[in-house]
């Protein structure tokens, strides 16, 4: 009897363990189910590389190159801002800061990670957007630049905490060896510790980028949402995520527009899948060594 009970419980726990695989599969299947219908009428290459996104014209033109470029531009901007600052901050916390300051900084970064994206978007709207407008003397502050700055702040907690972990897990003996050979603390950091943690730092950067590409609300609130091919950082852009969030409410279920938004979802899902698997490989590589 007891054996039987154990057996039932074990199987039940196994099923719960399998749910995460089930949900990933379900997400993919349902995105495909709703999204693939689009390609009965639209050529996939035209969908990805066409230049016009006019979902409400007749017939609708559903080509997402401007949205892809919008996402890429904002992501590029956010990466350029967040990677140097995030990496520097991680090094400072892991190697230089005294214990007390270290605790405060870590709490501050956890705080930043916890702020809901809609609140960051709101703060961006009321502070950053007017600044950008006056500093660059442009007609609107709702630009790719504003979006990049806010997104950088959303990527940095991810980058800092994972990179700090990677730096911290470099064996102490490496650093001691470098110091014993007469290197200064700084030399031991950039010649020994940072190279030893490089795959972890790379994973941190990738996960930060993943966070930026998937971010929705803040981007929708401050990038201006113009679905045109962007030429500079001082222009309004529209990202893949913002398009889904802004237009799904108006799309008729089963219409071409609706399917196209799900197809964008497929693109985002595949992108995040690739980024996460690659980042995980880098993290795993570090564990093996």
């Amino acid at each position: 009897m007891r054996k039987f009970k154990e057996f039932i419980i074990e199987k039940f726990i196994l099923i719960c363990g399998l749910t995460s695989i089930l949900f990933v599969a379900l997400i993919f299947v349902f995105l495909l189910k709703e999204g693939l219908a689009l390609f009965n009428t639209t050529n996939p290459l035209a969908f990805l590389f066409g230049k016009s996104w006019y979902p409400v014209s007749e017939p609708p033109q559903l080509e997402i190159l401007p949205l892809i470029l919008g996402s890429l531009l904002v992501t590029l901007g956010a990466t350029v801002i967040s990677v140097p600052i995030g990496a520097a901050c991680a090094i400072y916390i892991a190697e230089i800061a005294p214990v007390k300051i270290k605790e405060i900084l870590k709490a501050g970064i956890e705080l930043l990670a916890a702020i809901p994206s809609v609140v960051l978007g709101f703060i961006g709207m009321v502070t950053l957007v007017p600044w950008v407008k006056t500093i660059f003397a442009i007609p609107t502050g709702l630009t790719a630049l504003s979006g990049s700055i806010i997104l950088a702040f959303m990527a940095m907690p991810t980058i800092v905490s994972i990179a700090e972990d990677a730096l911290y897990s470099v064996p102490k003996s490496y650093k001691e060896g470098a110091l014993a050979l007469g290197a200064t603390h700084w030399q031991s950091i950039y010649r020994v510790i940072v190279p030893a943690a490089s795959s972890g730092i790379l994973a941190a950067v990738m996960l930060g980028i993943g966070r930026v590409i998937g971010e929705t609300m803040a981007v929708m609130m401050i990038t201006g949402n113009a679905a045109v091919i962007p030429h500079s950082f001082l222009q309004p852009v529209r990202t893949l995520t913002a398009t889904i969030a802004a237009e799904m409410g108006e799309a008729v279920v089963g219409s071409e527009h609706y399917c196209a938004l799900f197809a964008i979802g497929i693109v985002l899902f595949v992108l995040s899948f690739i980024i996460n698997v690659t980042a995980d490989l880098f993290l795993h590589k570090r564990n093996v060594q």
Partner: protein
Amino acid sequence: MKRTYLSQKIAFSFLFLATLLLIIPVGLIVVIIVEKGITAITWQFLTDIPRQGMRAGGIFPAIVGTVYLVVGAIIFALPIGLLAAVYLSEYARDNLLSRMIRLAIVNLAGVPSVVYGLFGLALFVIYFRLGTSILSGSLTLGIMILPIIITTSREALESVPYSFREVSRSLGASKWQTIRHMVLPNALPGILTGTILGLGRAAGETAPILFTVAAFYLPQLPKSLFDQAMALPYHLYVISTQVPNVDEKIRYGTALVLLTLVLCMNLVAIIIRYRFRKKKSW
């Protein structure tokens, strides 16, 4: 020799500056919201329904909606997440299956929040015909916070020393008895931390509830699981971008309530973790 120390000094000051560049804006954000929002917080603001097209009145339905959604999400996600963590830490061997589960969790954590919204729309709202309802929204949010709960619970379970299990098994307890009476109680604070972090995340997310539950304007409280509801983050989005001429005070007030809710949960989680670490004697 002097030059190497000089370069160290310069490098360290740059690192310090970069850290300030990150930390000071965080402080500023919180200070600005608290300073401008605190004047809006009155008893009436917290307990009244929105009036005059959301340009006056309070945010009570949004607060209630968020509480319902978060509670629903956790009721769904905690049992599944906890048992999944038990599987990974106690039962799984290091084989292809457990590696696939780990990879699935990593991916689930990385799926963009708006894609969860699409998924919730396609599966719960349309396929299961639950409609835009609290139930659909809770389930969507529940799946979204599942990876957080699994990861933190698993860490908590794995931090219970192996010897505890050996002693329990050697006294004749079965594997499940060992887990129930030995491992779970000792991992409880860690599990609690993860649960609260999940709650905070669910309370702050907007994109997953956009198409699954959120009502633009609904001046009454939801009566059942199948009703639409307002929610704080979506309400903040609506009054700051969709409705013109809303008093700044109301926007800041809403932002402050949302921020306080989320940060309090995180604070509680941090405190539990801190006290647990201090108390832990192994």
